[in-house]
C-alpha cells in the first residue's frame, strides 16, 4: 500500500499521467472536432448530391409528362380525329371502320418506340372509342364517363389533366397502374367532341423511383398539389396508417429543404416542384447522410486509442529520460547520506538536471571543505588544550622555586634570593614571549639556562650544567618550553637519585633539514621498560612522572608531524640522553604555519 502510494507520488507517474491525460484530452478534442467537421462536410456533400438526384428525377418525370403532352397536342390537332368525333352516327359502317383504322394507326404510330406509354385512346361524347392498340376492348362493366380522368378533363375544358397513379379499369381484362393524361378534344368551331386519354405505365416511374436510394433508408416520394401521395415506396404502409409523411410541410415548402423529425429520426426533406402540380420530395435520414458515419467513428476511435498507446509509451520513455539523471542524483545523495563525500555526479542530462548535478557537486565539495575545516578547528582546539597543559607546568615549577626562595630568605641568604628571583624573572620573560608558540632557539636556551641556574642554586654542588649551542643555530624557531621538562626529568629522575654531583649537557646540531637538541645527563639512567613507558600515554589517573616529557613529545608531533618529537638513549648507571628533533624554521619566516 505504502509502496503503491509512493509509486503514485513519483514524478515519473505524475509525468506519465499528465502527459497521457493531456494527450488524451487533445486527441479527444481533435477527434470530436474532426469527426464533426468530417460529418458536416460529408453531410453538405450528401445534401448537394440528394438535391441533384431530386432534380434529376424531376427532369425525368417532366420528360415523360412533356412527351405525353406533345402527343396530346398532336392528337388534339388532328382533323381526322375531329371529323370522326364530330359525326354523331355513321351511315356507312365501312366508313366508320375506315376512320377508326386511320385513327388507330395514327395513335398507334405515336406509341411506337414509347414503351413508357401504356395506351393512347380517344373517347367520343357520342360513345365512340378508338385506341392506338387494336387489342384493347372496353371493360363492359365500367362506364368511362364516371372515371376521374374523364370527368376532370371535361372540367378542365381543353387543359391537360395529369392524374395521380391509379388502376385503369376501363379496358377489358387489364388493370394496369398508370398515370393518365386526359384532354378534352374540341372541333375548330369549339364544339366539345370527346376526351383523349394517354396512359403512362406507372411501373416506369415506379421502377425509376424505387431504385433511388438516398442512403440505406432514404427514399423519394411524390405528392400532387392536393397533398395526395402520388408515389411512395411504402405506400402500403401509408395507407395502412403505419407511416405518415410530413405532407403539409412539403406543401408549404414550394421548393427547398427542411428538416423534420419522425419516429425519432431526423430527416431532411428536399422538395422540388415539378411544374405540373407534383412535388418530388427526397427524404434522407440525417444520421445516414454520412454514409460511413460508423466507419468514421470507428476509425477515429481506433486512431485515438493507437495515439494514446503511443503517447503513453512515449511519455513513459520521455519521463524516464528526464527522471533518470534525477534518480542518479538521488542515489548519490543517498551515498552522501551514508557519509561518503568523495563522490562526483556526472553532469549530464537536461539543462536543469545538469545544473542540479553541478550544484550538488559544489555543495558536496563545500561540505567536504567545511568538514575538513571542522577537523582543523578540532585540532586547533586540541592545541589550545595543550597550551593550557603547558601552562600547568609552570606553576608546578614556580611553587617549588618559590619554596626554595622562601627557604633561602628564611636563612637570610639574601644574595642567593636575589640571584634566584632574578633568574626566575628571566625564565618567565623567556617563557611568556607574547603568547606566541614559536620562539627562537635562543630564547629557549635563555629559558633553560635560567631554569638550570635556579635548580643549581637549589641543589648546590649536586648539579652542574653545560650548554653548548652554536650561535648559528640559535635563530631557528622552535616551540617554547621543550627543554625545561626534559631537563626537569633528567634532574629529578637521573641526577637527583645519583650519588655525587651530576652534569647536564645541552648541545645542538643540524641534521639535514632538521635541528636536533641533545640533553644528556650522567644520572642513574633508565632501564628499557621505563624508557619505553616514557613516551607512551599515561594510564588515566596516574600522572606525575613523565607528564612533562610526554607533553613535549606530543606537542612536537602535533606541531611538526609524526616524524618529529623526542627519542631517548639510556644506559642504566651511566646516564640518559634525550634528543629533541624538529625542522629548521628560520625566524625570518617564523609564523603560525602548519
Amino acid at each position, binding site marked *: 500500500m505504502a509502496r503503491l502510494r509512493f509509486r503514485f507520488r513519483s514524478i515519473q507517474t505524475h509525468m506519465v499521467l499528465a502527459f497521457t491525460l493531456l494527450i488524451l484530452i487533445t486527441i479527444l478534442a481533435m477527434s470530436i472536432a474532426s469527426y464533426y467537421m468530417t460529418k458536416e462536410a460529408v453531410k453538405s456533400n450528401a445534401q448537394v448530391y440528394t438535391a441533384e438526384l431530386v432534380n434529376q428525377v424531376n427532369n425525368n418525370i417532366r420528360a415523360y409528362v412533356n412527351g405525353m403532352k406533345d402527343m396530346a397536342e398532336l392528337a388534339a390537332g388532328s382533323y381526322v380525329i375531329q371529323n370522326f368525333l364530330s359525326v354523331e352516327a355513321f351511315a356507312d359502317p365501312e366508313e366508320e371502320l375506315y376512320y377508326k383504322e386511320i385513327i388507330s394507326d395514327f395513335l398507334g404510330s405515336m406509341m411506337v418506340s414509347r414503351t413508357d406509354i401504356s395506351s393512347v385512346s380517344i373517347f367520343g361524347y357520342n360513345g365512340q372509342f378508338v385506341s392506338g392498340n387494336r387489342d384493347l376492348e372496353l371493360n363492359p362493366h365500367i362506364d368511362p364517363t364516371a372515371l376521374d380522368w374523364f370527368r376532370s378533363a371535361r372540367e378542365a375544358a381543353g387543359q391537360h389533366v395529369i392524374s395521380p397513379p391509379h388502376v385503369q379499369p376501363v379496358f377489358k381484362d387489364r388493370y394496369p397502374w398508370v398515370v393518365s393524361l386526359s384532354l378534352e378534344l374540341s372541333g375548330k368551331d369549339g364544339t366539345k367532341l370527346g376526351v383523349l386519354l394517354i396512359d403512362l405505365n406507372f411501373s416506369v416511374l415506379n421502377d425509376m423511383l424505387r431504385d433511388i436510394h438516398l442512403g440505406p433508408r432514404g427514399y423519394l416520394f411524390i405528392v400532387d398539389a392536393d397533398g*395526395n401521395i402520388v408515389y411512395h415506396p411504402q405506400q*402500403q*404502409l401509408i*395507407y*395502412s396508417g403505419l407511416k405518415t409523411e410530413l405532407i403539409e410541410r412539403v406543401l408549404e415548402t414550394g421548393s427547398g429543404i427542411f428538416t423534420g423529425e419522425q419516429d425519432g429520426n431526423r430527416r431532411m426533406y428536399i422538395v422540388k416542384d415539378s411544374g405540373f402540380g407534383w412535388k418530388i420530395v427526397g427524404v434522407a435520414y440525417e444520421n445516414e447522410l454520412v454514409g460511413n458515419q460508423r466507419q468514421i467513428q470507428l476509425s477515429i476511435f*481506433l486512431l485515438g486509442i493507437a495515439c494514446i*498507446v503511443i503517447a503513453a509509451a512515449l511519455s513513459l520513455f520521455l519521463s524516464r529520460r528526464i527522471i533518470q539523471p534525477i534518480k542518479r542524483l538521488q542515489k548519490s545523495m543517498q551515498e552522501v547520506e551514508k557519509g561518503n563525500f568523495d563522490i562526483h555526479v556526472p553532469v549530464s542530462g537536461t539543462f536543469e538536471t545538469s545544473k542540479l548535478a553541478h550544484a550538488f557537486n559544489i555543495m558536496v565539495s563545500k561540505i567536504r571543505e567545511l568538514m575538513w575545516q571542522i577537523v582543523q578547528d578540532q585540532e586547533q582546539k586540541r592545541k589550545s588544550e595543550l597550551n593550557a597543559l603547558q601552562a600547568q607546568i609552570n606553576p608546578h615549577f614556580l611553587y617549588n622555586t618559590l619554596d626554595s626562595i622562601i627557604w633561602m630568605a628564611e636563612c637570610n641568604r639574601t644574595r642567593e634570593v636575589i640571584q634566584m628571583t632574578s633568574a626566575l624573572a628571566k625564565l618567565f620573560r623567556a617563557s611568556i614571549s607574547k603568547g606566541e608558540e614559536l620562539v627562537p632557539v635562543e630564547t629557549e636556551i635563555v629559558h633553560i639556562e635560567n631554569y638550570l641556574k635556579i635548580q643549581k642554586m637549589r641543589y648546590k654542588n649536586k648539579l652542574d650544567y653545560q650548554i653548548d649551542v652554536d650561535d648559528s643555530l640559535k635563530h631557528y624557531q622552535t616551540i617554547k618550553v621543550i627543554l625545561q621538562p626534559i631537563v626537569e626529568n633528567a634532574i629529578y629522575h637521573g641526577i637527583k637519585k645519583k650519588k655525587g654531583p651530576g652534569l647536564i649537557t645541552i648541545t645542538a646540531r643540524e641534521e639535514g633539514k632538521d635541528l636536533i637538541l641533545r640533553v644528556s645527563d650522567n644520572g642513574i639512567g633508565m632501564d628499557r621498560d621505563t624508557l619505553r613507558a616514557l613516551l607512551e600515554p599515561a594510564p588515566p589517573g596516574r600522572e606525575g612522572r613523565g607528564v612533562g616529557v610526554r607533553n613535549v613529545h606530543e606537542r612536537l608531533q602535533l606541531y611538526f608531524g609524526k616524524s618529529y618529537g623526542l627519542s631517548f638513549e639510556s644506559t642504566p648507571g651511566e646516564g640518559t640522553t634525550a634528543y629533541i628533533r624538529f625542522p629548521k624554521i628560520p625566524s625570518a619566516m617564523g609564523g603560525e604555519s602548519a
Partner: protein
Amino acid sequence: MMAKMKWLAAASVILVAAALGLTDWFHRMTFPRPARVEVIIKTNTMEFWQVLVDGVHVAAEEFKAEVRVNGPRTEADVDGQIAMVEDAIRRKPDAIVLAATDFDRLVPVAQNVIDNGIRLIIVDSGINADIAHSVVQTDNVAAGNKAGRVMQEHLQGPTKVAIISFVKNAASLLDREKGVREVLEGDPRIVRLDTYYVDGSEQNAYSKVMEILRKDPDVTGVIGLNEGTTVGAGKAIRELGLKDRVTLVGFDNSLEEIKFLEEGVLKATVIQRPFSMGYLSIKTAVEAISGKKVPKTIDTGSLVITRQNMYEEENQKLLFPFVRS
C-alpha cells in the same frame, strides 16, 4: 529494475486488453449483427401471401433483419409446414414468424420453437395455445362481422345462407366463421346457416357451391371465407347465371374477385392488409429480439370492398398491389 519491467509489462498488457475490449464493444455497438428471422407462411402460391412477403421484405430492409421465407405448396400440407418449422428451429434463428395452417397440429412444434429460446410471432393464422410473443393478424371475428353485416343488407327472408370454408381447422377461418355467425345467427330471416368445407381447393369450392345452389334454390346467400372459396363460388354463380338472385360475399382479393365485383357476381369482399401483416410481423420480431416489450396482439384491420368503392385511391393500392418482382 525487474519490478519496474514487470509493472510496465502488466500495464501494457492491461492497456492492450482494454483497447481490444473497447474496440470489440464499439464494433458491436457500431455494426450490430442483423436479426435472423425465419418466416413460414401457409403457401407461397397465392397473391395474398406474395403481398405479405413483400411487406416482410420491406420491413427486413428497414429494420435490418435477415429473413428467409418458406411455405408449403398448398395450405392443406400441414405436415409439410410442421417439417419446415422444425427445419427452421435447427437453423437457430432469433425469431420465427409463423402463419399456422392448422389451429391444433402446429401447437407442439410451436412449443418447440419457444423451448429453443426462439421468439415466436404468429401472423395471419394463430394456433390453439397462447404461447406466441405476439400475434399479428386481422381481427378475423370483426372481419367476419363485417361480412355478415354486408350479407344482411342484401338478404330478403326467409332464406338460407351457405358458409364455404377452405379447410377445417385454420384459426383465421374459424374466427371469420364465428364472426359471420355472430351476426347472421340472430337474424330471423335466415332459416338455415350451414358451413361447408372444401378441403383447401378452389375447384372443390366451385363444385360444392354448384351442388348447393342446384339442390336448394332457397339458398340466396353464399359467404366464401377466403379467396379460394370466394372465387370458386363466384364461378359457380356466374355459370348458373344467378348473380341477381344469390348474394356472394367473400374475403380477400385477387384479379378474379375484382372481375366478379365489376360484374356484380361478388357483392362485397372483406379484404385484409397482408402487406401490413408481413411488415408488422418482422417489425415486431425485431423488437422482440432486441428485448423490447411487444404487444400480445396486433390487429391490422379489414375493409369492405364493393363495386362502388373499389377504385377509390386507397382501396386501389390494396386491391392492386405492386408485387415485387
